[in-house]
Structures are given as structure tokens and as C-alpha cells.
């Protein structure tokens, strides 16, 4: 009896699910998807978009397991993830939906305003532990990082730490919001977030990737004129097999209306 009920319920579930798109993954991309889903649903009320966070790794793992339709990611798909998809006979498609300047943030009371790539590497791998070593006051450096599921965590490791591992025992925050909060409360803190999460409660430092010749602050202009060194694309990944299901939504996010949302949220459009 109970099985029958479940079965019946399951049937209605399937029937209703035809136009549902599940988007899962990066916390960095979350604001875009949230807003886009809202606007998209207004004109396409038969399409049901579901947005879930967790981190790029979570989204891509779900894509491999087949429990999401679109994986949102703030890093490129890893070779091993691609391999897993290939093994199960699936081909993945990648769409760049926006650009983001990865900002390094510190407490507003901190006098340090600029850091080189080498200094950042030293700080996050645990070689530099005091702000006075990089021109600040005598204060312990408290690096905050994201959880390992974060695409930002992986991107930062690859491009700023030259693939070295983070210092062991780094503080790991589950989401960008708590990073901002912790950095705004902690004097010696340093962390990294996507451009959309920057606000006045924290201070973004200018970074130099040419050994201190030029320092650039993270901003929309500096990303557009290509002077900011840590710029990354934000992606949607989906399976070629389910292209029909997600096409309408993907087209929307790439349309002028969708790209306007990208800008409103605080990222850089891809045009």
C-alpha cells in the first residue's frame, strides 16, 4: 500500500519534472544564478530552476553522479573529473558566463595596502606569519581560506600559490559571507573572495604579479582593461546529453538580459 503511494507520488514527480533545471555548485556564482533564476522564471513560468550552493567541487561531483543538470563553477573542470564523466560515457559542455577578479581582502584597520604574488604565497603557505614582514605593524597574520570544495580555493592555490599546498591548519570557512564577516572582525586577517562579495566592511589589497613593478586593485575597470592579474572565468558545465533541457536557460544567461544580471551582481560580463 505504502509502496503504491510512493510510486504514485514518484510518477507525479516525474511528470512535473520535465522542465526542471537543477543548478548546483560554486558559492561565487551563486548570486548570478539566484537572480537569473528569479528573472528567468518570470518569463518562463513552466521552467523550474533550482539553485544550490556548496562549492564548485560539490556541483561537479553532482554532475558526475547525475544529480544536477548544471554545475556552476569558479574554476575549470579538473582533468580527473572530466575523466570520470568520460568513463561513464558522458560528454561535458562548458560555457563561460562571466569574469571575476579574485580579490585579496584584509581588515580595514590594516595599514598594508599592497602585496606581491610571492608575499601572498608566503602568507598562505605559512612561511610569512607576521604583518611586519610585509610592511605592516607587528601583528600575527591570520589567513582564512575556503573549504576544499570551493573552486576559489583551488583557483587561488593554482594561480597564486603556484600549486603549493596551503599551510596545514588554515582556517576554513564554509562560505564567502562568513569569510567577509570574519575578516571584518579580525585585525590580522587575510582572505580571498570573488568581486561580488567585496564591500566596505573589508579592505581589498592591490596585488602585483611582476615582482612589485606595478600593483593593481581589484575592480571592474581593471579587469576590463586587463591590468588586474588574478582574473578568472566563471563557468556553467552541463552534459551534452541534456542540452535540450538546459538550453533555454543557458541562452538566457548569455543574452543581454542575462549579462545585465551578471553586471548587477558585481561581476564582469563576457562581451
Amino acid at each position, binding site marked *: 500500500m505504502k509502496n503504491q503511494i510512493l510510486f504514485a507520488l514518484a510518477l507525479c*514527480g516525474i511528470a*512535473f519534472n520535465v522542465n526542471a533545471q537543477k543548478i548546483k555548485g560554486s558559492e561565487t556564482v551563486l548570486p548570478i*544564478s539566484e537572480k537569473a533564476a*528569479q528573472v528567468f522564471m518570470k518569463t518562463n513560468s513552466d521552467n*523550474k530552476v*533550482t539553485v544550490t550552493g556548496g562549492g564548485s567541487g560539490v556541483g561537479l561531483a553532482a554532475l558526475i553522479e547525475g544529480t544536477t543538470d548544471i554545475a556552476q563553477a569558479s574554476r575549470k573542470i579538473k582533468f580527473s573529473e572530466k575523466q570520470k564523466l568520460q568513463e561513464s560515457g558522458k560528454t561535458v559542455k562548458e560555457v563561460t558566463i562571466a569574469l571575476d577578479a579574485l580579490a585579496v581582502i584584509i581588515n580595514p584597520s590594516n595599514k598594508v595596502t599592497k602585496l606581491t604574488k610571492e608575499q601572498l604565497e608566503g602568507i598562505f603557505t605559512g612561511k610569512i606569519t607576521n604583518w611586519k614582514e610585509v610592511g605592516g605593524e607587528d601583528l600575527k597574520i591570520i589567513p582564512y581560506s575556503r573549504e576544499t570544495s570551493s573552486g576559489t580555493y583551488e583557483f587561488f592555490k593554482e594561480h597564486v600559490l603556484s600549486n603549493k599546498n596551503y599551510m596545514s591548519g588554515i582556517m576554513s*570557512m564554509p562560505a564567502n559571507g562568513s569569510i567577509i564577516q570574519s575578516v571584518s572582525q579580525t585585525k590580522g586577517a587575510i582572505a580571498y573572495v570573488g568581486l561580488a562579495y567585496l*564591500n566596505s566592511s573589508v579592505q581589498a589589497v592591490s596585488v602585483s604579479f611582476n615582482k612589485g613593478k606595478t600593483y593593481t586593485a581589484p575592480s571592474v575597470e581593471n579587469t576590463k582593461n586587463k591590468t588586474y592579474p588574478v582574473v578568472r572565468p566563471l563557468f556553467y558545465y552541463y552534459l551534452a546529453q541534456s542540452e535540450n533541457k538546459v538550453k533555454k536557460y543557458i541562452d538566457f544567461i548569455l543574452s543581454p538580459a542575462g549579462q545585465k544580471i551578471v553586471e548587477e551582481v558585481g561581476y564582469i560580463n563576457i562581451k
Partner: protein
Amino acid sequence: MNKKHSQFVAFLIFKLLGIIVVLILFSILGFIIINGVRVINWEFLSKFPGEGMTTGGIFPAIVGTLYLTIGSLLFAFPLGVMSALYTQEYAGKGWIVKTIRMMTNNLASVPSIVFGLFGMSLFVNKLNFGDSLLAGSLTLGLLALPVIIRTTEEALKAVPDTYRAASLALGATKLQTISKVVLPAAMPNIITGLILSIGRVSGETAPILFTVAAYFLPHLPSGVFDQAMALPYHLYVLATSGTDIEASRPMAYGTALVLILIVLTMNLLATFIRRKLEKKRSK
């Protein structure tokens, strides 16, 4: 120091302790209530969230929690009550029953995140339900199961054996005895257990983290394979995610208050029923 003095000092310390602890507990409650009350209005309860979770309301999260609670108990309540009936009324005192009882006691103390771990790998991945109301309800149901079994067993134990003997002596079958005599007598206690587990299930976050919870839905779930928002997860999201954490803070206070109200109402209701029952029995 003489006896009287040491007694005076000790009692003073205990009184102070009592006052401090009660104050701490109430200040937490008060903090949430004061900050939350400002936010709660009809719009907050009936609208979808908007603008990066800083405006609008928490309607889909309320509905999601409602669905999850109903779904989980739809599965756990009948199974739990029937299992308890079996162990109490039918099974003897053999090792099987003893093992089951030990296992349920154990299961009751297993941390909720372990249920999440199990639910995600079995329901979401192996059985391919995906992140869905079905997977979430089953996971929460497993969590509620031992609670329901235990309270039902206690309720059945509380029914005096003379009732059963009298009924059987009058020629009633065992089924009749159970359905007409034992169950009605035990019902209020069983219902109390049900209400308590509603309170527990609606406040759990860890088991739904990987089985059903969605960050944002611009629509309500329409089938058991849909994801849903839920109040506890929504509070977690409001507290840790969001592009403007300061702006979404009021929403978080409001959500916390709604969550507390639901849970406390359930617990109060259970206490109320139990009290009524105790009075009735002592008459």
C-alpha cells in the same frame, strides 16, 4: 566556619548559579525574539526571498519544512508504531527483541550528520533519488524512527496488563484487544511522541544538507523528486552565505524566530498533552 555559615554560602552559590544559567538561556531566546520580531510580518511569511536574500520573505522555506516534516513522519510514524507494537505486544522476550531494542537505543544517539552521510550515499546516489524531498524525508524519517519507537513502547508499557487480561477474558481476540483497548489507552502518549519528533525533525540541518536542501527556489516544490528549501538550512545560508551578510542579517533573525516558534510550539503542545493526561490519570 560553622555548619550554618557553610550552608548559607553553598545555598547562595546555588541560587546564583540557578539565576545565571536561567538568565543565559533566556538572554539567547530574548536576543533572537527581540531582533526577530521586528522583521516578522505577513510579507515575510508569505513572500519569496529576493535581491540576494536581503528582501522578501521565507515562504518557500516554511513550505519546504512543512513538506519534509510530513514526508518523514508519513514514513516513520506507522513503521515506528507498528514496530513498537510488535516488540511490546507480540514478540516474546527473546534475543531478537533485545537486539532490536539495543539497536534502536543506539540509533537514537547516533549524531544527525551520520544520518546525512547515510542518506546521501544510499538515497541520493545509490537509489538515484537525487537531491529530493523523497531522499530528505526518508533520511529525516530514519532519524525520527528510534524516537517514535521508544515513546510508543513507553506508552504501551504504561497500559496496565489488567486491561489486556480483562479484554481477552471477555473473549476478544488479540487484535481486538490491541485495537480497541490497548491503543486507545496508549494513544495520548503516542501522540506526544509524534509531536516531539515533529519538533526534532523540523529543526534538523545536518541530515538535509546533502539530501534535499536548496539555496534558492523561485517556485514551490511540486513533486517528491523536487528539491526544497527548509528553515534550518535557510538560516544557515543566511548566516554564512549571501553577498551582503549585514543586509541579510534581519532576514536571519526572522528565520531563527520562526524556527524557534515552530519547535517550541510543538514541544509546548506535547508538554500540555502530557500534563492533561497525568491529571486525568491521577483522578
